[in-house]
């Protein structure tokens, strides 16, 4: 526990000094990461803690965004709501929409719940372009950040600190919520709603409230997005964004409070970094998600916890060989996959296909700073060999990991017995 606190403090400190180190373009990426992290954390309140899988959470994010923009235009940062407090309007918008939508959606559970959230989001998505009063039609609406509290919010650094403040506060609040009696009831909702009903709780009301709270924090994230981009249009309601938060959250791990934060921050970071390098980022994201779903349902955070538990039990030295071979496996396999996908992507791209001349060998493609001929055996043998090597090391890593786990029960009883004997003598 102590270690976690120290790590969190270090992380917070790093986030505070970040804008001083990073170039301006990266500060913007960092803002995106923070917003995505908050959105995922809000989503996890509903799906991870409440056990209600929503496929339309982008709706509340979008509503928060639009509400904040309208407030920006109406108030000009004056009056009771100066610019830094504007995400409150996003929160309000998200909360009200969450109450209404949640009342419908939470009447059913399980798959039906997911379908209703999906339908509601799609309903909004297809209505929004026609409601130009609210959502500004196809073009969307835009606004300007007004100066407040002696700050002009002209550059990215000030927006970064504003976002950081809101995100840290919101995540802290979300964590505090899990400690309240209602937060505990939310967990109970996931585990067994029927039993909760028999205990005399009003399950439907509880579900609606959890839904609305989750939508409220999603609305804050949307409001921050509005402050950052100063504009929004109906594309925010797209299925794509709802899907993204689902992927991020599960890749991070739903059972650990900070898991979705980790997942969203990492995915947004890599998404930003990779968007210049590859056109297939979504494919990698999908592959990663399916891998997580199939082989480590507790997500990245579960993986971290698992390894740190081993380290605590056995010390660094015992864990290093297994960790090393696991890392090599991951490296080799991802290299193989990236190699194969990028080669295919380049060969099948329209630009490349236009270069082809009939009856002539296909020209080389450049990848990893080298030229590769699509006709050459090596080009296709590379990913295969890398993959095979990866699978071989995987076998080794698996055996080492199982050995680590196997030692465990043997150590347990022995330690126990010696303690019992010690007490007797």
């Amino acid at each position, binding site marked *: 526990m102590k270690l976690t606190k120290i790590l969190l403090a270090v992380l917070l400190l790093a986030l505070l000094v970040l804008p001083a180190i990073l170039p301006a373009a990266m500060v913007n990426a960092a803002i995106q990461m923070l917003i995505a992290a908050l959105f995922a954390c809000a989503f996890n309140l509903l799906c991870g803690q409440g056990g209600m899988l929503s496929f339309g959470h982008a709706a509340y994010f979008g509503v928060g965004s639009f509400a904040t923009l309208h407030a920006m235009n109406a108030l000009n940062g004056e009056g009771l709501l100066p610019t830094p407090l504007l995400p409150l309007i996003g929160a309000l918008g998200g909360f009200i929409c969450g109450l209404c939508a949640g009342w419908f959606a939470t009447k059913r559970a399980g*798959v039906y719940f997911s379908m209703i959230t999906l339908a509601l989001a799609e*309903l909004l998505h297809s209505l929004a372009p026609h409601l130009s009063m609210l959502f500004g039609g196809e073009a969307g609406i835009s606004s300007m950040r007004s100066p407040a509290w002696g700050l002009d919010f002209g550059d990215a650094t000030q927006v970064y600190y504003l976002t950081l403040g809101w995100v840290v506060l919101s995540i802290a609040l979300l964590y505090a919520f899990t400690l309240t009696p209602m937060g505990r009831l939310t967990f109970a909702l996931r585990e067994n709603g029927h039993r909760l009903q028999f205990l005399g709780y009003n399950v439907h009301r509880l579900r609606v409230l959890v839904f609305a709270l989750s939508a409220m924090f999603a609305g804050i994230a949307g409001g921050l997005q509005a402050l950052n981009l100063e504009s929004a249009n109906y594309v925010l309601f797209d299925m794509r964004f709802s899907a993204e938060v689902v992927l991020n959250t599960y890749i991070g791990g739903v059972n650990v409070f900070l898991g979705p934060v980790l997942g969203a921050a990492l995915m947004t970071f890599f998404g930003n970094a990779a968007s210049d390098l590859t056109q297939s980022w979504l494919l990698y994201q999908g592959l990663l998600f399916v891998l997580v779903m199939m082989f480590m349902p507790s997500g990245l955070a579960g993986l971290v916890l698992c390894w740190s538990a081993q380290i605590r039990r056995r010390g660094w030295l015992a864990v290093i060989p297994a960790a090393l071979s696991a890392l090599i496996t991951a490296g080799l396999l991802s290299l193989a996959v990236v190699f194969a996908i990028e080669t*295919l992507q380049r060969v099948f791209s329209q630009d490349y296909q236009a270069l082809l001349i009939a009856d002539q060998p296909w020209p080389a493609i450049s990848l990893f700073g080298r030229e590769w001929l699509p006709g050459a055996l090596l080009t296709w043998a590379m990913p295969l060999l890398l993959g095979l090597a990866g699978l071989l090391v995987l076998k080794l890593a698996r055996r080492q990991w199982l050995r680590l786990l196997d030692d465990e029960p043997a150590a347990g009883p022995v330690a126990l017995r010696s303690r019992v004997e010690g007490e007797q003598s």
Partner: protein
Amino acid sequence: MEFLTVSLLNGVIYGLLLFMVSAGLTLIFGMMGVLNFAHASFYMVGAYLAYTLQKFVGFTSAVLLSTVLVGLLGVIVERFFLRRVHKHGHAHELLLTFGLTFIIAELIKLFYGNFSVEYRIPEFLNFAAFQVFNTDYPFYRLLMGGVSLLVFGLIYLLLTRTRVGIVVRAAIHRPQMAEALGHNVPLVFMAVFGIGAALAGLAGALAGAFYTTNPNMALELGVIVFVVVVVGGLGSMAGAMIASLLIGLISSFAVGVDLSLASLFGLLGAGDWAQQMGGLMTLKVSSVAATIPFALMLLILLIRPSGLMGEKG
């Protein structure tokens, strides 16, 4: 009158097409409790496979071949993906198929590019079947409807008149009991998943040539198919048929209706006031045609949560 007839024909045939895709989905759901998000992706894969194969083997064999191949793909998905995560529960399976839709859509984009491909109806099928009010009615539409009806008939007979059908229905209602009686239930699951996928693939191969074949077709159709399945009642074949036709007709009629809420208020004598209100009031039905199925689904879930023909709530 012309509008009525043509919309009726188009709506019925679009509904039959929807049925071909949703039949597999509703069967799989009824049996395994898995809402297969990737089902519409099978539809898309069918279209793209047929598009690729028809260059080599001709249209008819391409359609048949891609049906079989998509069926195999479905078997693979069930055997090597879904069965692995079965122990984690239905939500987990739903999420896995959700991830698969991403992968399939991105792979399609990788191989075929992020735009629609030139998949056309072959010349020998591209003629008018008959004339409606002096306009030609394409034979291909009738072909799609006919194939769908044929499929419905075959599945119905298979499920109700054969031994295999009895085992499948038993596996749907009481999987443990069917297994205890010595039937290989996992095999039945796999086969039904494969057949459901093959049906979606067939629908894609046929419809892809008539409508457009692009990487977004899975998502566009997928959401509508979910609506069909929920409205019809998850797990019910007849419900899927009724809901498909209903949604097909609604979508086909809605695009031609030039009315709005304001016209309704106009009947009550408050038309001018409604016109001034703007916003939702003056939205034409035709421009919000895409939203009507969702509204219908919400309505159904509120007044009859188990769907039109669903058994359990």
